[in-house]
């Protein structure tokens, strides 16, 4: 089935609809491979993963096998993971440190900068054989912002900083959590799948509306082990902490839910779930953030949560821990998900374990909440198969300054997605000036 119209976007009538065929059609997925996953900046890894010369990570990005390595010249590069000779995978382990990558098939050897440095019986090739022409091929673009490395398969793409637009401010809030200025990806990768269209996970990851109904058992747990952090309560020094801006369009399809939630944050908002013993240390971290960055920025880091979406398929949810999550379609109704945990480099020992346990209270395929999301997304995908309903309604909050529990974040994604799929550049990613406006309701929870 081919959707004639992907979305209906009429803020002036409080209407925003998405055609369900966008999540079931193989033709649309084929087009997504050629546009969405070939023209945008896609997350490949974090600088901490290439801590030393020769360190590498094998990744699948935009459905393509690549690897990402720190060369002996200390420069990070991303290579197409294929031998320039006859095609075999060059990097066949997920991670490690190497000085040479040797193709097992015919034993061509490449150094960490991609140069072809050896091959058996080179004399068997003609006089025009040039090692330089048979070097490993780099992915056209690799750029980083605050340690987050992205690749782009489009040589003509705008630079990463321009692409990230206003999302940079939120990446700064994440990266600045380390008082030594260095964040790290913690060991351990959660790799799982969902029998659902990949765009459902974009929506779900920045959806404040579903939190209370879907994850009631998680909130029961929080309540049961000592109570929630009071979302609107004064901070320990008696001042009101920032409340967050709700749902925000960050440009180019990026979006964030910026708010305050009732769980604890290792950096740095104590809640009973983090344990009495941690209380003093977390308050101290909070004070250090304020000393280092000033009151406004320090409190934003410490006291506010952010579900950050970097278009098209990166989620950095800085909530009860920081999860870096990326996902790729396999079929219209199936995706693979890979999730990491990001932490300040200085966190070790009991402090790191505390963060890891706080992550797992909610997040990941064995957490007390994420399995509910997997079920919800798979349930939507099954529901689409029933037919009878053509459009999803994504209009919540279109008539007001968006709350975290509204759906502006999803509209932002869909506007950019629609623009790229139809080849007509987006003119705006928020709801625009024509929508009727009502002030946000005070005290609303995201």
């Amino acid at each position, binding site marked *: 089935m081919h959707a004639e119209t992907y979305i209906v976007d009429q803020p002036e009538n409080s209407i925003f609809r998405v055609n369900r065929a966008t999540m079931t059609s193989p033709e649309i997925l084929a087009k997504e491979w050629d546009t969405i996953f070939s023209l945008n900046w896609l997350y490949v890894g974090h600088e901490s993963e290439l801590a030393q010369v020769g360190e590498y990570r094998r990744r699948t990005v935009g459905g393509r096998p690549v690897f990402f390595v720190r060369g002996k010249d200390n420069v990070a590069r991303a290579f197409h993971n294929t031998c320039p000779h006859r095609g075999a995978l060059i990097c066949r382990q*997920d991670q490690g440190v190497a000085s040479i990558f040797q193709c097992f098939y015919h034993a061509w050897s490449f150094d960490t900068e991609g140069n072809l440095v050896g091959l058996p019986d080179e004399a068997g090739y003609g006089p025009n054989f040039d090692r330089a022409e048979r070097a490993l091929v780099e992915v056209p673009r690799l750029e980083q912002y605050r340690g987050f490395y992205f690749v782009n398969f489009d040589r003509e793409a705008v630079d990463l900083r321009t692409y990230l637009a206003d999302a940079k401010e939120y990446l700064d809030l994440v990266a600045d959590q380390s008082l030594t200025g260095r964040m790290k990806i*913690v*060991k*351990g*990768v*959660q*790799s*799982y*799948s*969902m*029998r659902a269209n990949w765009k459902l996970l974009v929506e779900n990851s920045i959806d404040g509306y579903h939190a209370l109904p*879907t994850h*009631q*058992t*998680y909130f*029961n*747990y929080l309540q*049961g*082990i000592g109570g929630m952090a009071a979302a609107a309560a004064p901070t320990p020094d008696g001042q009101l902490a920032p409340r967050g801006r709700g749902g925000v369009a960050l440009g180019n399809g990026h979006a964030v839910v910026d708010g305050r939630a009732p769980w604890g944050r290792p950096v740095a908002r104590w809640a009973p779930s983090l344990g009495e013993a941690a209380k003093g240390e977390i308050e101290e971290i909070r004070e250090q953030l304020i000393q280092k960055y000033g009151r406004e920025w320090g409190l934003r880091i410490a006291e506010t949560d952010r579900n950050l979406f970097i278009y098209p398929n990166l989620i950095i949810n800085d909530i009860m821990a920081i999860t870096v999550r990326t996902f790729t379609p396999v079929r219209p109704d*199936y995706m*693979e998900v890979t999730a*990491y*945990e990001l932490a300040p480099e200085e966190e*070790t020992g009991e402090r*790191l*374990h505390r963060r*890891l*346990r706080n*992550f*797992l*209270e909610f997040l*990941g*395929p*064995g957490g*007390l909440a*994420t*399995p*509910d999301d*997997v*079920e*919800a997304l*798979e349930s939507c995908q*099954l529901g689409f198969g029933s037919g009878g309903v053509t459009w999803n309604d994504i209009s919540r909050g279109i008539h007001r300054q968006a709350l975290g529990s509204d759906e502006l974040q999803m509209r932002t994604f869909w506007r950019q997605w629609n623009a790229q799929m139809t080849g007509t550049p987006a003119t705006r990613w928020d709801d625009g000036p024509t929508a009727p406006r009502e002030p946000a309701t005070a005290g609303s929870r995201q």
Partner: protein
Amino acid sequence: MTTLERSDTELSRLLLQRRVEEFLCFEADILDDWKLDEWLALFTDDATYVVPSTDDPSADPGNSLVLIDDDRQRLHWRVERLKSRRAHREYPWSRTRRFITNVRVLSASDDEVVARASFVVYRFRAGHADQFVGRYLHTLIPAGDSFRISARRAELDQERLSPNGAVSMIL
């Protein structure tokens, strides 16, 4: 011709092996029957339940991101959640069948028995049949003629949790 020697050491080793196997089969049965309160009661107050991520079955949950790292309190809430009808991936509960085999007692003292076993857990729900394959490591505390569990670790052999999607039931 040799005679089968009956040494007391050998007999007590076999008896222990048999008791451990019986205990693991009992545990599998009550989990397949979703008798979660009965299962939780097997754990000591300082017990842990760990499922490492699929990239490193030997990972230490103290410094690595795993799938599950429960203490007794978190395990209580995991069970409460599964009983609540609001653990949406397990309401209605899936049908599971656990096959426990290759049981080996790795070490044994009067205070503690460490045992390893292979498992296949089939999970049937919503038209899908998912399997979980791996290895258990149990630390058991002798209690009367049975045991209590002080540490339980389920290490998966799968490279990814695909297409399972989640560890929504007790593994």
